[in-house]
């Protein structure tokens, strides 16, 4: 199966690979997929005081399309508010990367990762409001 030029570009030069500390209160972490299914995506977002995503990181175990999908969304997420980030659809990712039908699940996984990272961040921030100071790390 031939990959599109955009998938190859993201695969060969993945953007924003890496990890933030999960414990930072302005970092949201989403981990989706399962090794048994052949793909696991970890997506992290870091927001500033205005609630804008100022940085994003990913690590992905999966095929080239899964790696490209997660690399692409880290680029898209930067500069967006959380509400704007929630509007990113898997179909946008699939279209941008010209994913074939058998690889659509990779874009679905990337959308799920965004939602999971945002949910994690919001949960953390809600806890921060209720019980300031010691939170996430203690609860774990």
């Amino acid at each position, binding site marked *: 199966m031939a990959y599109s030029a955009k998938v190859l570009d993201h695969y060969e030069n993945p953007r924003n690979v890496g990890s933030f500390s999960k414990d930072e209160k302005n970092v949201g972490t989403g981990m989706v997929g399962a090794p*048994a299914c*052949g793909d*696991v995506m970890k997506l992290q977002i870091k927001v500033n005081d205005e609630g804008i995503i100022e940085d994003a990181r990913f690590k992905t*175990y999966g095929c080239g399309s899964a790696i490209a999908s997660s690399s692409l969304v880290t680029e898209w997420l930067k500069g967006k508010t959380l509400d704007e980030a929630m509007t990113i659809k898997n179909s946008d990712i699939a279209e941008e990367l010209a994913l074939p039908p*058998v690889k659509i699940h990779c874009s679905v996984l990337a959308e799920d990762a965004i939602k999971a990272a945002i949910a994690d961040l919001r949960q953390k921030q809600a806890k921060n409001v209720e019980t300031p100071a010691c939170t996430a790390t203690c609860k774990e």
Partner: protein
Amino acid sequence: MSIKTPIYLDYAATTPVDPRVAEKMIPYLTEHFGNPASRSHVFGWVAEKAVETAREQVAALVNCDPKEIIWTSGATESDNLAIKGAAHFYAATRGRHILTISTEHKAVLDTVRELERQGFEATYLDPEPDGLVDIEKFKAALRPDTVLASVMLVNNEIGVIQDIATLGAICREKGVVFHVDAAQATGKVEIDLQRLPVDLMSFSAHKTYGPKGIGALYVRRKPRVRLEAQMHGGGHERGMRSGTLPTHQIVGMGEAFRIAREEMAAENVRILKLRNKLLAGLQTIEEVYVNGSLEHRVPHNLNMSFNFVEGESLIMAIKDVAVSSGSACTSASLEPSYVLRALGRSDELAHSSIRFSLGRFTTEEEIDYTIALVRAKIGKLRELSPLWEMYQEGVDLNKVEWAIH
């Protein structure tokens, strides 16, 4: 170092036609184009002679009588003819149970499934973790109504060699027809059908440097094994497989098997040396696992799992080297290799597997290049892998609750 890429390390999928084979085939396309069944003129006689010479060449490689060789379109057809043909012929007298192994090729498994749909019963025996069939378990799985057992000689994914002699002897004693798929075995392991208690054996040309689209089925004459034909027509091949014989393909298979017989001993020594070099170069990477027995394996195969790296992404990373993956991520099912799963490998390791298969034209330079490339890319992909990160942090991946999607 200048090296020609892409490098072909997928000889278990198919092999190039040996130039010596191609050369022998060409006159039978243009000059000696006659129908081997034409008895009334020299065109037919020439073609018939070529077909019979090839039959002798195929028979010589596996030490049987040329009369025991039936031409087919390939090993898939041979498997179908052997399994359906024998099961149907003997069902009424011997029973309707079939025994096979869960790591067989789909040409066997799917044929047995079809017989199940027709009312037969089947047992799919799992091999041991090294890929080999346990003799006692095999014996125990045979039933009084077992009509046929089918076990491959060399596995296509992991290259392990089954103990056909022992399994065949058990079948012979119990009166069970024994079929062996030897598509991956010719030219790699010695096959002596005078000695082996095998009733039916499937062969393919294109795994042994012959052309695609031609194969053969060995049908034992003493004691005689009977088959119900699956293809009806002009009564070719003693009524077992009708259809005009493709002379050029048959000539190609004959020549390919002749070369295999003459060169396999030296070739196996050379390929084993290369395979061991590849193994030595890769097994020093952390968290890699060889799939299947190394001891009972053809020299041509190395199947390895690179933990925490997904197979398809590795294949993409080493795109200058043509290999295949046990991961079926390209299919919508996302199911990893059923062969590796049957060995009890975890889904993770099955998804992380690569099959390297070496052959006649593999060079030492190609192996050196492959080792360096795989080592570099494994490092890169692990930097990308959240599983590798967790492993390094000491997280037990089996205890993580994954968000299965």
